[in-house]
């Protein structure tokens, strides 16, 4: 499935971050591992709490997608969703090719495209003034299924269907920045999360 980027969102038509993530929280199942990062890691714990949630904070910026790919490769019996910011993706655009080269059919990348480095005070990313088509980049990198949403109703209607298509999948969401949303915050320390996810995955593999 592909969506042409012929109608990029006007700033006032971007989705609200919480509303966009609520759609994803409703679509995920007990089979899904969800890796959040940066701004999404701050919002997700307010709307969902699942033993297979992993809030990658503190992270190495740009690491969420390769981290999720590692999980997906280790556990092909699971579906892995990673929620990445556009600034993080820009730090390591090559990881899109790493993902497609790996043929990880159980990985979904959900890109929060807000055009800014939200957690450091909403400075513009280089892409904010460059008319970057992330869905187009993913398509060119070889993702078999790519979607681009800027309307919440459309994302709500079709998002779950896209998540069920053959992976790896790339979903770009045009989202309004959260002004004043400084700093990624995780609900519990990273080491606790590592232990919780490792144990949960080990239990489910028995």
């Amino acid at each position: 499935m592909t969506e042409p980027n012929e109608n990029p969102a006007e700033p006032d038509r971007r989705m609200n971050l919480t509303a966009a993530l609520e759609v994803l929280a409703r679509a995920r199942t007990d089979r899904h591992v969800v890796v959040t990062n940066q701004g999404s890691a701050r919002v997700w714990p307010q709307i969902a709490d699942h033993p297979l949630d992993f809030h990658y904070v503190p992270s190495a910026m740009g690491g969420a997608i390769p981290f999720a790919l590692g999980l997906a490769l280790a556990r092909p019996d699971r579906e892995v969703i990673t929620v990445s910011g556009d600034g993080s993706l820009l730090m390591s655009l090559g990881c899109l090719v790493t993902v497609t080269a790996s043929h990880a059919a159980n990985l979904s990348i959900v890109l929060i495209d807000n055009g800014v480095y939200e957690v450091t005070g909403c400075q513009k990313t280089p892409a904010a003034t460059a008319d970057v088509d992330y869905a187009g980049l993913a398509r060119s990198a070889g993702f078999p299924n790519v979607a681009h949403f800027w309307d919440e109703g459309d994302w709500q209607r079709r998002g779950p269907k896209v998540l069920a298509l053959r992976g790896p999948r790339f979903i770009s969401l045009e989202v309004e920045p959260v002004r004043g949303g400084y700093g990624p915050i995780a609900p519990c320390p990273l080491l606790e999360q590592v232990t919780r996810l490792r144990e949960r995955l080990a239990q489910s593999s028995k």
Partner: protein
Amino acid sequence: MTANAPPSLFIGSEIAESLADVGFTHVVWLPDSAIGLWEEALDSSPRLTLVRVCREGEAWALAAGLHIGGKKPLVVMQTTGLFESGDALRNVLFDMELPILSLIGARSWLVPGSKDSAFRFAEPILKAWGIDYRLIARPEDKPLLAEYFAERLKTGRAGAVVVAEGPP
């Protein structure tokens, strides 16, 4: 060593056998000209999965995901990649405290008189990061590779093996 130093002290088949024997399941790599000679052996090993990354920083996070998912990954790259991926390894080894192991190729180490900064900074950087390592710079050191990795896997501790290389 002579000016005609070999590109690598190891051949692919012995590396692939050693890594699989000690228990690694995945090799996450970005090769250089010496390590790259191992590609066919690693890629064809029925006991190893070779994962190619586009930049070295990806390798550490990817290995972290593999490890938490229950696998035993080895990160393989040149010293230049080690330098590039400092923040990624900082996060994985020190924030997440994961016992990820790595094999680092030290370019030009075997070239007498080489001033290549790619190898000169290798040990200082590893020491600065506080990463335990073993250096394999002579043929007689080669058994160290399997011994060290086996011990670190058994005890669940991070570490690196630095393998001296010839010219790029």
